[in-house]
């Protein structure tokens, strides 16, 4: 263990430079982030992830945001365990009917001001699962969505671009 820790002191970091902001995300968010709420929250946001029926592909890439290459926390963004601690809900999946109520209740448990980011093609419009008896479809049919990050699943760099737009703009 000592070797691993010592090496950490000597090696240059793996972390990549911050990506440029995503133009589309900036445009979509323009109305959602008013100055007042930004002042109140500063440059730090707490994120609660909600899987509303994803295949777990999106979760894998959201997880990757924590590794040394992307290091999400350097932007003041961190994942929290409870919606009551969260400013942002990060929702994945085509909202299965069995998760519909849980998603609504998680949204209700999140204090204002709050934003919802829908991650992945399923969360955008149901993706390949749209049209079945078991899925609602787009997240925006259940709760208001402020930002969509598309992809199946979106790569971590796309997630990073979208998310830092929330704190820098």
């Amino acid at each position, binding site marked *: 263990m000592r070797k691993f820790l010592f090496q950490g002191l000597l090696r240059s970091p793996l972390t990549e430079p911050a990506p440029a902001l995503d133009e589309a995300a900036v445009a979509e968010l323009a109305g959602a982030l008013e100055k007042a709420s930004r002042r109140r929250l500063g440059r730090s946001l707490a994120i609660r992830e909600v899987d509303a029926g994803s295949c777990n592909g999106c979760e*894998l890439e959201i997880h990757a945001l924590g590794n*040394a290459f992307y290091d999400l926390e350097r932007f003041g963004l961190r994942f929290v365990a409870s919606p009551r601690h969260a400013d942002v809900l990060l929702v994945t999946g085509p909202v299965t009917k069995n998760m519909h109520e849980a998603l609504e209740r998680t949204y209700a448990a999140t204090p204002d001001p709050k934003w919802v980011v829908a991650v992945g093609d399923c969360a955008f419009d149901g993706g390949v699962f749209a049209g079945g008896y078991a899925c609602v479809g787009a997240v925006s049919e259940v709760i208001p969505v402020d930002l969509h990050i598309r992809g199946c699943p979106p790569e971590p760099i796309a997630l990073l671009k979208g998310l830092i737009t929330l704190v820098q703009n």
Partner: protein
Amino acid sequence: MISLRETMRGGREIEQSRPWPRHVIDHTSWLRAIREISKGQGDMLGLWSDGADVHMLLLDHGSSDIGIISLECPNGSFPSVAHMHPPALRLERAIRDIYGLEADGSSDVRPWLDHGRWGVRHPGAKPEPSEASGDAYAFLAAEGAPLHQIPVGPVHAGIIEPGHFRFSANGEVVVRLEERLGYVHKGIEQLMVDAPIDRAARLAGRVSGDSTVAYALAFANAVEAALEIKVPRRAVYLRALMAELERLANHIGDIGAICNDASFSLMQAHASILRERVLRASRLCFGHRLMMDRIVPGGVVDDLTMEGVVALHALLSGAKKIIPRFIDLYGDTTSIQDRTVGAGFLGPELVKQYACGGVIGRASGRGFDARRTPGYAPYPELSFKVGSAHAGDVDARVWVRFDEIKASFGLIERILDKMPEGPIRIESLPEPSESREGAALIEGFRGDIFVWVRLDASGAVQRCHLRDPSWFQWPLLEAVIEGNIVADFPLCNKSFNCSYSGHDL
């Protein structure tokens, strides 16, 4: 006495079934088959329905033969398998929810995937509209003065999939865990009905995102078996390469995540760097980090370039240096071992009874690996070791993962060495002109994935069943946690790493 093998080969044979025979048997033979598997004469590897019949995939221990037996259910019911063989219980509950077929004599008639939210009952056959306000669910009782219940989920504290766990605890000690799953049920099997092959392949690749390669491979192999086509050899090798990269990425991620759940975040930090390197190499080689939609019936869509080969060799040489250091870090740190050794013990009897595959089975002495039995190309041409242990605890499941990571290094090297030249995809799939059936059993990182498909005369999917290895692993997690403290649940759960999406379908 009639052996299980003879029962599997009795009745009326369905001629269009490949690669394993399917026999429609009578009521008496069905009961005899159940009795034989409950006595341990064979493994039940799947139980499913197409709306009219129920089917069971069996592996006979004596002969290692695989076969499918089917029972017609004209009266809407079939004799319960779970009555004598409990691993079938949740599968029967799911069959009833989707198709309305009753398992006569079953001890548990509660719905499983159907939470009363779909607005329809039995969506797979004769759908009836219903209220969508949600059904009450009666959890099993745990009685006694000092007991208290802890409900967890469906929304969990981490970045993980949803499911509900109901703990009954005596102080810190868990006396009963009951799982309630089905929250991510997307109705994939019904979405597959009448779907063209390419759409069905995309759906199959999204049953469980972490196993997208294994599912795409299983679906492709099943379709190719049904159509009796052979894909080019280069495609076979590229598929195995993708499958081993997926196994590597997941096992590395799991080792980091297990350690992280015991607050040993140093391992997690380094494992997540290595995992990222595997995903980046996968993207460079095949154009997608998780390699989704790269394997299709008929071949693969991307060829490996020289640049890709160089990247893979670089990845391997780096990973082969760092993994021994991970092993030292894990093996020499007594504080993490203190948490993992002896925690979440799973005995060999349950593993055998449930035909539990993957790392979980192999860490408790069941050596089954679909790459070996029944085996599929190109693995018979490549030598590799299967991980094994007998201790059956969290620690054993970590060590088996390390074994399999090393085995995958060797496999990737051999695949690259032997990579044949030539085409990577056949030009077009033939039209079958009659209904055909195919099946495949593929070893994903989590265990054996079973896919069964019936194509119609035009070549579209008529019915498809996809059975995740988690079906035979989730129930064992309930057994494993008994007597452990509540705080060790995340550790035990992560050492299993069952799929919610793959199970809920």
